[in-house]
C-alpha cells in the first residue's frame, strides 16, 4: 500500500462534501531551516529566474537584492497557529490502495516581509575614497616591474565582486553609485581618481584643445586619447577624463564628446577654494583666471557645491559639496542643520535633490525631517531641524 505523506494537494483540491484527517507529520518538528517569505508576483518571477541574492557582511542585517532594487527583510510574527503542510511525496507512483495522509510538518511562527530601502551607498564612497588613484600609482603602472605595488603596501582595493560582497545594493544601484563617484575600473579594481591628478589630465586636455584648434563641442575621443597618451598619460585615464568632464554628442558610437562647462568650471572653482573661505570678489577673480577661454563661469553653476555666508558687508564663499554628504535622509538633514540651523529653500534644495527614498516624496521628506517657518508673509519660508 502506498502512503502519500504531506498531502498539500489534498487540502487545496478538497471537494465540497469531502473531509480528510490531518495529522502531525512523521518528521514534525521546529524545522528552523524552513522559512516563509512573502513575495509579490514580480519578486516571485525574479526569484525563479535566479536573479535574487541576499547581500551583507556577517555583522549586518542582510538585505535582499533583485537586479535593480534593495529590500530590508523583516520578520513578522503570527500569533495564530499556521500549520504548514508540504506537498505529497511517495516512493510509489501507483494509485492502487492509495491512502492520503495530510500531515503538518511544522507550525510556522510567522513569515518574512520585504520593505524596499535605499541602497547603502555611503559605504561604497567610504571604501573607494580611502585609496584614490593618483600620480604615484600611474608611475608604478607604467613601470611593468611593479605590478604588485598596492599589495605590497597593504592597500585594500575592490573588484566588482568584492563590492557586491561588501556593499548592500543591487547591481544596478551599485553601477549608478560608481558612476556618481566617477569611478573607473583599473586592472580589475574600481577606483576614484585623486582630484589633483584629474586636474593634471584635464589641463593637459585643455592645453591640447588650444594647440590643435579642437572645438570644445566636438572632441574626437581617439584624437584626445592619442594626444594624452603621447604626453604619457594612460589611455584608460584619458578616456575617463572625457567621461568625467564631457558628454557624448550622439549615442551611435561616433566617439564625439562635448565638454560640459558646468563640470569644468566647478572643477576649477574647487581648486581655487580648497579648504578656505574666500571673499566672494577675490574668488570670482581667481576663478575666472582659471577657466579656459571660450567658457563662461557663472556662480549658479556652483549650487550644491559651495555656500556663501555674509558677515557685515563682506560675503565669503567656501566649498560645501552635496557629494560629501551622507546619502541617507536622517543623517543628511542632521549634517545640514548642524552646519546651518536655518535654510531658505533656494539654498537647501540643491542639497536634497539627489535624495531618493522609496515611498517618500520631497514634501514627505521635508515634513518628516524639517520644521517650516515663515516669520513674515513677504519673506521666504525658512527650514530648520524638527
Amino acid at each position, binding site marked *: 500500500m502506498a502512503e502519500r505523506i504531506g*498531502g*498539500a*494537494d489534498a*487540502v*487545496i483540491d*478538497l*471537494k*465540497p*462534501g*469531502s*473531509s*480528510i*484527517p*490531518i*495529522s*502531525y*507529520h*512523521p*518528521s*514534525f518538528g521546529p524545522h528552523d*531551516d*524552513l*522559512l*516563509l*517569505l*512573502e*513575495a*509579490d*508576483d514580480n519578486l*516571485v*518571477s525574479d*526569484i*525563479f529566474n*535566479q536573479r*535574487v*541574492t*541576499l*547581500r*551583507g*557582511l*556577517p555583522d549586518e542585517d*542582510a538585505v*535582499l537584492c533583485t537586479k535593480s532594487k534593495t529590500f530590508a527583510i523583516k520578520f513578522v510574527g*503570527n*500569533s*495564530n*497557529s*499556521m*500549520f*504548514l*503542510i*508540504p*506537498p505529497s511525496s511517495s516512493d510509489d507512483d501507483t494509485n492502487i490502495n492509495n491512502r492520503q495522509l*495530510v*500531515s*503538518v510538518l511544522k507550525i*510556522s511562527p510567522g*513569515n518574512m516581509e520585504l520593505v524596499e530601502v535605499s541602497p547603502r551607498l555611503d559605504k561604497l564612497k567610504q571604501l573607494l575614497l580611502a585609496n584614490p588613484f593618483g600620480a604615484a600609482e600611474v608611475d608604478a603602472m607604467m613601470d611593468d616591474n611593479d605590478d604588485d605595488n598596492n599589495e605590497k603596501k597593504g592597500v585594500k582595493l575592490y573588484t566588482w565582486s568584492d563590492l*557586491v*560582497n561588501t556593499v548592500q545594493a543591487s547591481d544596478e544601484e551599485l553601477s549608478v553609485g560608481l558612476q556618481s563617484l566617477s569611478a573607473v575600473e583599473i586592472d580589475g579594481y574600481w577606483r576614484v581618481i585623486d582630484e589633483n591628478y584629474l586636474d593634471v589630465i584635464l589641463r593637459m586636455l585643455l592645453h591640447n584643445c588650444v594647440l590643435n584648434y579642437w572645438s570644445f563641442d566636438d572632441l574626437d575621443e581617439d584624437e584626445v586619447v592619442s594626444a594624452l597618451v603621447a604626453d604619457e598619460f594612460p589611455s584608460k585615464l584619458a578616456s575617463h577624463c572625457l567621461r568625467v568632464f564631457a558628454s557624448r554628442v550622439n549615442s551611435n558610437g561616433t566617439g564625439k564628446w562635448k565638454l560640459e562647462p558646468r563640470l569644468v568650471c566647478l572643477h576649477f572653482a574647487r581648486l581655487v577654494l580648497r579648504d578656505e573661505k574666500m571673499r566672494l570678489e577675490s574668488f570670482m577673480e581667481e576663478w575666472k583666471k582659471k577657466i579656459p577661454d571660450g567658457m563662461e563661469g557663472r556662480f549658479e553653476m556652483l549650487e550644491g557645491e559651495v555656500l556663501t555666508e555674509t558677515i557685515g558687508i563682506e560675503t565669503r564663499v567656501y566649498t560645501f559639496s552635496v557629494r560629501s554628504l551622507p546619502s541617507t535622509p536622517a543623517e543628511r538633514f542632521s549634517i545640514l542643520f548642524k552646519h546651518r540651523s536655518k535654510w531658505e529653500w533656494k539654498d537647501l534644495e540643491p542639497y536634497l535633490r539627489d535624495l531618493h527614498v522609496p515611498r517618500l516624496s520631497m514634501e514627505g521628506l521635508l515634513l518628516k525631517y524639517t520644521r517650516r517657518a515663515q516669520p513674515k508673509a513677504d519673506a521666504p519660508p525658512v527650514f530648520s531641524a524638527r
Partner: protein
Amino acid sequence: MEIRVKCRCGEDECSEWAIVELQGVVETQASFEGSIQNLEIGRLCHTESSQETYTFTVGYHELIGSKVTLKKPLLVLKKLQLDDEVSGKTTELEVVGIIRTKILFKTRPKPLISGTN
C-alpha cells in the same frame, strides 16, 4: 557575502504547499508529549453548501473557516549550511515551495455536544 536564492524548478513546476491557520494553540494531552509525530490532530471538511466554508474538528471543538487567496504568495525557503573544503562554511537558500492559498479559521471553537457522532 552574497547568497543566491536558488530554485531547482521553474515557477510553473514549483510545488504548492498548504497552510491551515487557526487562532490559538492546539494542545496535546500530556501522555503524548514528545512523540506527537503521526498523531491525528483533527478532521478538515469542505462543507457541501453554496458558500466556500470549511470546518475543522479538533477533539470536541469545531472551527469554521474559509479558503483565502493570499494577496502576496509565500515562498517556502530552505536554508542550507554547507561545509566546503574550498570555501569553508557557506549558506544557501533554496525555494522548495510556494503557497498561494490558505484555509483560515477565525471563529472561536464551537464545542460539540457528545451524542452527535
